[in-house]
């Protein structure tokens, strides 16, 4: 098999740098697998390991520090047939730690070669995530205070199904890299090497000491039995085949005549969990069955089942521009938190306005009719009260008619509409 090395761009590493050996080893590995240049993408990031893509005549993608795995993921998902090899340094594994963990967990068929030389060679020999505490680095005493990352143990714990830890000087490294690339799934190869430009100036390190260091660590040389599982891309495509397609937006036909042609500004006030937003949506749908244009602007806190919930619904014959409500025609109040949030609204009510409020709420003064709804007595659950208030409104034939409400419920809750409708007769009569 021909070499995939770029004849026009020979490696430019410092004399004695193990990156140069690894360039050759990767080339031979790809040769052993008989991969053609156009079938291989080399993804790199910043640092000396980031020079790799230029030495090969394969597809190449060189990006930001520590982010190579993110590009590789998109590329591999888009083109499953592509052999994707990522090179990163020990610096990249530090800054891109989250991506490294995610790649291990996800198990896309990508091979990650970590060119681990225990320091930031390009920027001045600063400490990296793998620097031993006793090393002399460009980061002063800081590496003495930190614990180095064991990349392979971390990968194993994160679910990597294939992990190898080797010295850059091992003779059969091409075969080992080829095995990792050939593995269907995420494979990680942590290759320990030497940085003569920076690290060896102040630290003793040799092929022998690297071999000795590796032998003192847990051995990693291939499949991790407990992490063996189906490759992510294949599993994704298989699972996606069974995913039901999203239907187009539901078309709602105007079939009823609304009680009034006047614009209606309805504010629903409640507590989170009272299905205020759902009631607002039902009101919108009901309006649409009456041929009205609608908007629904919602306000709530980031907490899910705590805090106020406010929905402002406008129904109009004409296009609605501003979606807020300055003067409501109807306020539905079923929860104290919502009332508190919009307490200023009540005094702005017009004289012909209407407030429908659950009995027991503290309400501010208001210049229009207030209708109290005895929900507690009627044992209407808190989460149904906004909906029940809508039914009161419908039976007053105000804003919406009962037919519009019924149609809206059938659109929103096709299977539960009848159950919901049954609760409506429990609401107080006019």
């Amino acid at each position: 098999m021909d070499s995939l090395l770029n004849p026009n761009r020979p490696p430019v590493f410092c004399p004695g740098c193990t990156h140069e050996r690894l360039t050759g080893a990767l080339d031979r590995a790809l040769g052993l697998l008989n991969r053609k240049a156009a079938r291989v993408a080399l993804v790199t990031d910043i640092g000396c390991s980031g020079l790799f893509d230029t030495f090969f005549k394969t597809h190449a993608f060189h990006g930001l520090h520590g982010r190579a795995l993110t590009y590789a993921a998109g590329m591999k998902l888009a083109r499953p047939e592509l052999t994707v090899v990522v090179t990163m340094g020990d610096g990249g594994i530090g800054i891109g730690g989250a991506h490294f963990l995610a790649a291990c967990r996800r198990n896309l068929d990508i091979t990650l070669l970590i060119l681990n030389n225990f320091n930031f060679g390009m920027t001045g020999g600063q400490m990296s995530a793998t620097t031993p505490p006793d090393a002399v680095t460009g980061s002063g005493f800081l590496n003495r205070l930190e614990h180095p990352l064991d990349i392979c143990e971390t990968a194993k714990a994160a679910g990597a199904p294939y992990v190898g830890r080797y010295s850059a000087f091992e003779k059969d490294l091409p075969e080992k890299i080829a095995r990792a690339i050939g593995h269907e799934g995420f494979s990680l190869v942590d290759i320990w090497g030497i940085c003569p430009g920076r690290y060896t100036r102040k630290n003793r390190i040799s092929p022998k000491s690297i071999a000795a260091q590796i032998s003192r660590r847990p051995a990693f040389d291939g499949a991790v039995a407990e992490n063996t599982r189906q490759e992510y891309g294949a599993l994704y495509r298989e699972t996606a085949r069974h995913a039901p397609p999203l239907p187009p937006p539901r078309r709602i036909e105007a079939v009823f005549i609304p009680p009034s042609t006047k614009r209606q500004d309805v504010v629903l006030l409640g507590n989170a969990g009272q299905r205020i937003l759902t009631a607002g949506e039902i009101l919108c749908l009901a309006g649409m069955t009456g041929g009205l244009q609608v908007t629904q602007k919602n306000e709530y806190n980031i907490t899910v089942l705590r805090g106020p919930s406010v929905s402002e619904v406008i129904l109009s014959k004409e296009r609605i521009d501003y979606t807020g409500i300055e003067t409501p025609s109807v306020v539905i109040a079923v929860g104290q938190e919502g009332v508190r949030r919009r307490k200023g609204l009540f005094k702005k009510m017009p004289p012909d306005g209407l407030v429908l409020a659950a009995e027991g709420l503290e309400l501010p003064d208001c210049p229009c009719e207030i209708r109290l709804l005895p929900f507690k007595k009627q044992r209407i659950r808190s989460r149904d009260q906004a909906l029940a208030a809508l039914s009161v409104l419908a039976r007053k034939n105000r804003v919406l008619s009962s037919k519009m409400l019924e149609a809206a419920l059938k659109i929103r809750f096709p299977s539960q509409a009848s159950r919901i409708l049954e609760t409506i007769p429990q609401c107080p009569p006019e």
Partner: protein
Amino acid sequence: MVHCLMDGNEAVARGAFAAGCRFFAGYPITPASSIFDVMMRLLPPAGGICIQGEDEIASIGSCLGASMAGLKAMTATSGPGISLYSEQISFAVGSEIPIVIVDVQRLGPSTGSATRGADGDIQFLRWGNSGGLPVIVLAPVDVTDCFRLTQHAFDLSERLRCPVFIASNKEIALTRESVDPEQLETISIGKRPAPVPGKPFLPFETSPENPVPGFLPIGGETVVRQTSSTHGIDGYITTDPAQIQDFRQRLSKKLLDAVDTYTFFDYFPSASKDLLVITYGVTARSARACLKAFGGREGPFSLLVLKTLWPVPESVIREKAEAAKRVLVLEMNMGQYVREIQRVLDSKEVRFFGRMNGELLAPSDILEACRHG
């Protein structure tokens, strides 16, 4: 009469899908998450890919990888996520990677208020990349715009090979409204330029006719190089100042020279020409409501609603402001885009009205501002 009930986020997702987007990656964030929700339901059944990144950096990174592999890609987030996207955005700008980025703006600074709206990222979107080269930002006003402009975003990002932002706002994204399905038109989406024929492929080579380099996907039959480093037309690092300068010039010019072809705006003239109100996004709706209250043409101002914010559509701004004595710029922030209007209309009195407290500017606020402006 038939209508659909939809919010802005769903419309963005459906617009993207209609434009041929087949890769989406996002990280959960209010108020953008529901774009991910809809993409998750749209893409996998159609053979596309939707993933949740381990963070925002990964989300946009995988989009860049997928885009270079030939797919139309989109991601969506809010201000805190745009902050994390920043380095990757610079990459997409400098290395001409098509991508659509949706910023559903929420009230900042910082994590701010997740469920309150604002237009506080308008200058950030423009300048949030290292190197300061131009980007395209489109600002929808309503749900129909979300559908339409997202498609235009894809058209522009593919044809011009650049990131295109949709500057949405919680108040559009999560506000439902009835939309006429006939208005949800699909547009034809342009393609990435083809490489110069009859020559060996160079990944950043342009032709005299087109300042945008020809595209071939990573993974295709021809080997392709992509790099975030300063590169020449062959995609390898260059240190040649002349080549570098030409390249930067081209990145700028390819967007700036074409802006008149993608200036989206609405103009509502009124009988009184003295005052021109310029605004964008959800605030445009409040300004429209003011005009409607006066029966349209009798309104106290003419209204220019910009939907292309960046590059600044200077021609249309100058043209519509020509007859105006005064200009009032309305924004849901502390005054960002007004700087551009002041720059373009430097001989006119340009004033600002806005606030950033999570509330929409109400029509009554605007009328008050007009009286004092």
